[in-house]
């Protein structure tokens, strides 16, 4: 029950942020293509859901920083999150450190691969390989996930999934209202 209350407040905050972002696109007319519209809507939605977290989670920070890399989104971000779009310097530093970490990780992997030569490929090795490859895939999916260790990756994934569900729910309701082809479904 408490979760549902938390959820509904999340939904409300997301909707508020999202509408704030949508209001910026006053230049929508008949000529804007569906693709442009889609991008704008999705961008507003993503920044809206990320700013509901108030930079407490890594994925939200990564999402906003990725969006702010493109200079044209600056006003959008400022409007939605209500605070300054992150300056490029700090994120440049972060990206630098990320690169360094990546390099070290890669060399570590190379060294590990050279060291271990399994004579018998048991089920455990296959399992480990599967787990590793899937963890890598998950890291690619979660924004900002590349540099997280496994524990925080799972924590971020949980938060990210919750936020995605909120996003889908609210957007779905809006869409079902605006376009009755999509049947209304409550999660």
């Amino acid at each position: 029950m408490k979760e549902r209350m938390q959820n509904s407040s999340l939904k409300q905050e997301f909707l508020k942020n999202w509408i704030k972002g949508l209001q910026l696109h006053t230049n929508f007319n008949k000529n804007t293509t569906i693709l442009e519209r889609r991008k704008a809507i999705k961008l507003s939605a993503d920044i809206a859901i990320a700013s509901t977290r108030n930079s407490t989670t890594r994925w939200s920070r990564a999402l906003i920083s990725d969006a702010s890399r493109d200079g044209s989104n600056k006003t959008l971000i400022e409007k939605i999150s209500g605070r300054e779009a992150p300056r490029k310097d700090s994120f440049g530093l972060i990206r630098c450190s990320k690169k360094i970490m990546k390099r070290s990780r890669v060399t570590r992997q190379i060294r590990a691969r050279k060291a271990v030569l399994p004579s018998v490929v048991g089920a455990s090795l296959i399992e480990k390989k599967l787990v590793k490859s899937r963890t890598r895939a998950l890291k690619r999916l979660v924004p900002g996930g590349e540099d997280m260790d496994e524990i925080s990756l799972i924590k971020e994934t949980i938060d990210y999934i919750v936020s995605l569900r909120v996003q889908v729910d609210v957007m779905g309701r809006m869409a079902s209202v605006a376009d009755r082809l999509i049947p209304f479904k409550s999660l």
Partner: protein
Amino acid sequence: MQPTSGELPEMNNLNPLVSLHDSQMSKSSHFDPTSSHDDFLDQMFSSVPSSASSFPWPEDHAPPQPCHLEDQSTALLASKLRQQQISNGAAKALLLQHELMLSRGLAVNDLRSPSGADIEFLNVPHADQDDVVDGSYYKSANLDHEASVKALFNGFTGSIGHSSNQPQHLLHSQKFGGPAVPEMNQPAASGTSGGGTAGQPKQRVRARRGQATDPHSIAERLRRERIAERMKSLQELVPNANKTDKASMLDEIIDYVKFLQLQVKVLSMSRLGGAAAVSPLVPDISSEGGRNGNGTQTASSSNNDGMTVTEHQVAKLMEEDMGSAMQYLQGKGLCLMPISLATAISTTTCRTRSHHPLASASNNPLLNSEAAGPTSPSISALTVQSATIAANGGGETSLKDVNSVSKP
């Protein structure tokens, strides 16, 4: 025979372990896994019945040859045990005790059940016990692939409840309680000495390695536990998450995240484009409403009348065709949204900013308005208009029911 006689008093301590295990099975919360080493030991040693007699020690019955081999290994283990006991490694001492027990169990089939019980008990004290030592030992003593599969399985679940339930079943089916220890995925880095011969020299190497990587194994154990408990909460989120395997669980998670992301993408492509065009007009209306609302009551009432007209129009259009109704609304700069969200937005925004009326038509499929008709398939079109906040800061929302239209 000296080492064996020396082992006996230590073996006595295992009986309370067995009894503890039994009580563990009855009430799960009996054993507190987070208690420190000292508490754990006190718990055990406090209830020492010296029932050496009851403990089956059929050395005499054992066939001599394997016993001989085992004696050597147990001698080694016993010496290690004494070293450990001297040097403050109490927990490790216990584990080495267990190893000794199991080395006995290897030689003697009669010890099947107690050794099984011991192994199960080993599963119980999860926190900070470096079961890795035992894990490595078991690995040497038993079939490798079975061990690894079970270990992965147990390692993934990780909680006491899980691992004490599952391996039991597996254990008793085996000859001498197999590798039921949760942690056997020892990092390969420390497994360099594992290769080579079977039997006695391997055991000696394993024991030494366990000592050397003590803090690492504890850290590993902690890490595994944290991962496991987070995975559990993730399992509740993701549908179809009854998989016990870590790899398939990750697969489900990945698929679910991809699915949600795709949903967001698709939803942003729908006719929300119309809604996006709508929202910039909202401030315009709000500014108009602000001008009106600042005036007298008549102004606000005329504002309301204006809304009523729109509502009737919308209702009429809704009866014919939902799409045209939507377009009409959008032309007016209104959008439909669930009423709960609308009220929430309006109340919060009204509180924070004055002169900010939100005019929107709300659609709540759950609410049934004045028409006394059908319940679920009806759509009620509700108009929510929050009046402008007067100078004194009062805010009000007025709800107006239009009518209910049944869904085609």
